[in-house]
């Protein structure tokens, strides 16, 4: 589309703010996001930030679509705010033809394109002359572009007010200063650019955001920990997981303080490293608390040893892995689904773990609670594999629901149970499901005690190197794992009668949802199974069998879940599985699903 052709596109655009990290643009971006959202228009923000405190480039992409697509669209905005001289040239090149760019007027436009609309603005001069507070000037300068964008896209003043009030909910004193700064931008628009427009505009709409709120996955998971009865959380700071425990601290200050005594009903401990963090959680799980740790890939590597202990001595513990791009330090502030295979069999020896795979904010909340129930039920580590995109970006989500069910504390023998029958052994499979009974330290009964050891042990927890005892115990752990497989969150399956299937999990879901719409418009229908846990549901094989080809879409280089699923389906079905991978650190866009699918299925363009 050329610059001159006017074909109004309503509520369908991507806005990008290219700024310098540490310049305080985040609150301006959130004000804009909330303002648009308050107009009933679906939003999908993605914050692309560097591993840096100050100085490196950062981008905020706000995608707006009438359909409410939540995945990233790409890096080609329709409206650009360019306030970073070091990326200015590249940012300008990224703009869609016909798009609009607001930029610091001092920047050179010598090599400029002729197919975009230019809006030069003297941001620094405006800030100096119009923003009175020296302390807040740097941050408030960003609000000026909110006013300018509002002028271009015709965002009503009331929506801007709402955006500010929500963003500064706890600081009403900040409202006026922010509104004044936005007004500087509106005034500048009216004085210099009034009447100019591009093909895109925003109009209030209804029916797409009713009952929805904006929340990130780490907030939701933290609230899930509160509602799921977590009482001990130990963590070591690491991006992108830190905000989970930081939110947990905030929520605990509100919801976990005894109103009469002021005593805390949760311990959130910043440990000395990830080894100690998991060790504390395991110690607490052993003593009967619902305990968790939260980390990201490098922390998972350090937790390998303790995870094997918890698996083998059978202690409930929940491990949140907010995945980022690895290996090693990798891209600490970029997203990936690269820890799945590692987490699935974390630690030496024969180990297998239960993995929950939340795809959205609601599931971060619900699966956090489910994880504690599963950990207690199966007396084993349970991983919740989120990622940076899901954990740290804001998503539209239905309001979270108050839990309906009580905690499942699993097979714990109380003093009273032991008084009825004290013939018990810690690792005996009494019920045939592989899950043994346990007692907690502090249980006031002479036969409650047992010895937990990471070395070989028999049904009564005694040290043993006996071959049959050792192998029998490992086999029981497999029985337990298979018992878990049947009750893990079931996959979501959407069949439209296609011979082509797609399998995805976690935040990749949003790209698949949009991709299926795009493919349908091209005349290609695909069935879809979204995995919500590993080990895979017994439904997996049936889904693969019902399709000629099944594409496993995921955000890692090696097709980790593709590999796992090939081993989980019958051998003759494994060849039907294909792999589609996206691994550049950015959240997967729909195009990364449609393009390979169309190529591999040889659909004429």
């Amino acid at each position, binding site marked *: 589309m050329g610059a001159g052709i006017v074909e109004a596109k309503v509520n369908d655009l991507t806005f990008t703010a290219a700024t310098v990290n540490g310049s305080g643009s985040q609150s301006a971006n959130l004000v804009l996001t909330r303002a648009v959202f308050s107009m009933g228009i679906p939003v999908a923000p993605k914050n692309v930030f560097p591993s840096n405190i100050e100085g490196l480039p950062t981008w905020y992409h706000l995608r707006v679509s009438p359909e409410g697509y939540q995945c990233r669209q790409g890096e080609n905005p329709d409206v650009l705010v360019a306030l970073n001289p070091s990326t200015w040239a590249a940012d300008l090149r990224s703009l869609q033809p016909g798009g609009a760019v607001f930029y610091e007027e001092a920047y050179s436009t010598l090599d400029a394109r002729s197919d975009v609309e230019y809006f030069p603005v003297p941001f620094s001069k405006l800030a100096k002359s119009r923003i009175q507070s020296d302390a807040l000037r740097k941050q408030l300068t960003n609000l000026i572009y909110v006013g300018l964008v509002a002028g271009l896209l015709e965002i009503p003043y009331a929506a801007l007010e709402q955006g500010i009030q*929500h963003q500064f*909910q706890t600081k009403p004193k900040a409202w006026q200063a922010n509104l004044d700064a936005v007004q500087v931008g509106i005034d500048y628009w009216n004085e210099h650019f009034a009447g100019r427009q591009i093909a895109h505009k925003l109009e209030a709409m209804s029916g797409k955001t009713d009952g*929805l*709120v*904006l*929340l990130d996955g780490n907030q939701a998971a933290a609230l899930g920990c*509160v*509602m799921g*009865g977590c*009482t*001990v959380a*130990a963590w070591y700071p690491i991006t992108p997981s830190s905000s989970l425990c930081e939110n947990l601290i905030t929520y605990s200050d509100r*919801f*976990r303080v*005894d109103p009469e*005594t002021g*005593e*805390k009903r*949760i*311990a959130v*401990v910043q*440990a*000395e490293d990830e*080894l*100690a963090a998991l*060790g*504390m*959680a*395991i*110690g*607490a*799980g*052993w*003593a*009967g*608390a619902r*305990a968790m740790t939260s980390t990201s890939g490098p922390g998972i590597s350090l937790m390998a*040893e*303790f995870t094997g*202990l918890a698996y083998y001595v059978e202690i409930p513990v929940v491990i949140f892995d907010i995945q980022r791009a690895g290996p090693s330090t990798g891209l600490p502030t970029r997203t990936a689904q690269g820890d799945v295979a590692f987490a699935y069999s974390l630690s030496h020896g024969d180990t297998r773990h239960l993995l929950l795979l939340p795809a959205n904010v609601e599931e971060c909340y619900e699966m956090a609670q489910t994880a504690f129930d599963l950990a207690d039920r199966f007396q084993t580590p349970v991983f919740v594999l989120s990622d940076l995109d899901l954990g740290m970006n804001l998503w539209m989500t239905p309001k*979270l629901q*108050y839990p309906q069910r*009580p*905690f499942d504390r699993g097979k714990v023998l109380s003093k009273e149970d032991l008084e009825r029958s004290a013939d018990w052994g810690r690792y005996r499979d009494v019920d045939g499901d592989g899950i043994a009974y346990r*007692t*907690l*330290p*502090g249980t*006031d*009964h*002479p036969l*409650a*005690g*047992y*010895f*937990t*050891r*990471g*070395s070989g042990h028999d049904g009564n927890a005694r*040290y043993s190197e006996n071959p049959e005892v050792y192998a029998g115990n490992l086999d029981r752990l497999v029985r337990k794992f298979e018992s878990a497989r049947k009750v893990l969150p079931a996959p979501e399956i959407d069949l439209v009668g296609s011979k082509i299937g797609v399998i995805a999990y976690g935040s990749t879901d949003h790209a698949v949802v949009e991709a299926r719409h795009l493919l349908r418009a091209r005349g290609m229908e695909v069935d879809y199974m979204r995995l919500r846990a590993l080990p895979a549901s017994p439904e997996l094989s049936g889904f693969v069998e019902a399709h000629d080809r099944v594409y496993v879409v995921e955000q890692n280089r090696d097709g980790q879940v593709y590999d796992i699923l090939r081993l989980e389906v019958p051998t003759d079905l494994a060849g039907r599985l294909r792999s589609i991978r996206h691994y550049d650190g950015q959240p997967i866009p729909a195009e990364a699903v449609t393009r390979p699918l169309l190529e591999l299925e040889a659909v004429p363009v």
Partner: protein
Amino acid sequence: MSATLNRLGLVRDAYKGAATTLCAGCGHNSITNHLIKALFELGIEPSRLAKMSGIGCSSKTPAYFVEQAHGFNGVHGRMPSLTTGAHLADRQLVLLGISGDGDTVSIGLGQYMHLIRRNVDCTYIIEDNGTYGLTKGQFSATADLGSVQKRGSVNEFQPIDPCLLGLTLGASFVARSFSGDGKQLVPLLKAALAHQGTAVLDVISPCVTFNDHEGSTKSYAYVKDHESIIQDVSFIPYFEEITVDYEPGTTREVQMHDGSHLVLKKLAEDHDPGDRLGAMRLIEENRDKGVLVTGLLYLDEAMSDFSSREGLSRTPLRDLGESELRPSRDEFEKFMGELG
């Protein structure tokens, strides 16, 4: 009768465990016996006791006492974090950690230091023999400079002293003893158990198989020749009256958090256990002379322990249910309303 039953009405045998699988003559076995005596005489409830350990010869010993209690033999050098977690789940547990010199000052150095820094309420016993026994005699990091390995090699590195380290980290209880000296060790064990906070007790415990030879500074003979016992320690539990009379000016008395008393009668030194710097000087000056000081080195009964500082619920966290842990439906809906 009262001689054979403790205040809970339990016999001494109630504090025994499985038969030891360590070498005959191992210092650790003596420590186990002294522990059984201390736990029995203090009347610790077996069901409230949790025995924690890492990996190594020392870490096997929790199997050898108080069979009724829960025990946790975790992974190498990580006992402090497991202990911290168990404490957070139920702060009423009596946590007794048994570690070794490798488990503490090599692989577990970080966790040891942070346990002390937090002052988690537990007893931390280091069964210190200066060698790796289970892997057949390598030097550990507590081996003294110049000490000789059984196979003849000489240690070229400075030792890490867990007591000195504890003092620099602000430990609230630091003591050193010798596995062969029950008269000193039993009251120190009782004091450590009574202490609310991390009680570090470094017990030199000779390894008869790999480190009891000429040239070792952790052998029975060496310790006997070079030990300087700084005070005679008496522990009077809160449930007993003080009946012993001491000559005025010869003793120091410390009241403990739970009402128990320590009476310290000066022997080699007139050391004030409230003087942290003095304790460090005492260790260093004697070490320079080749002398090993044993006794109560430092005690601060006023320091808050971890869960007190955190303001944690007195009711064990693990006993709280849905009504205490979930906000009400109204509170929850109010919160959801604030989100948008």
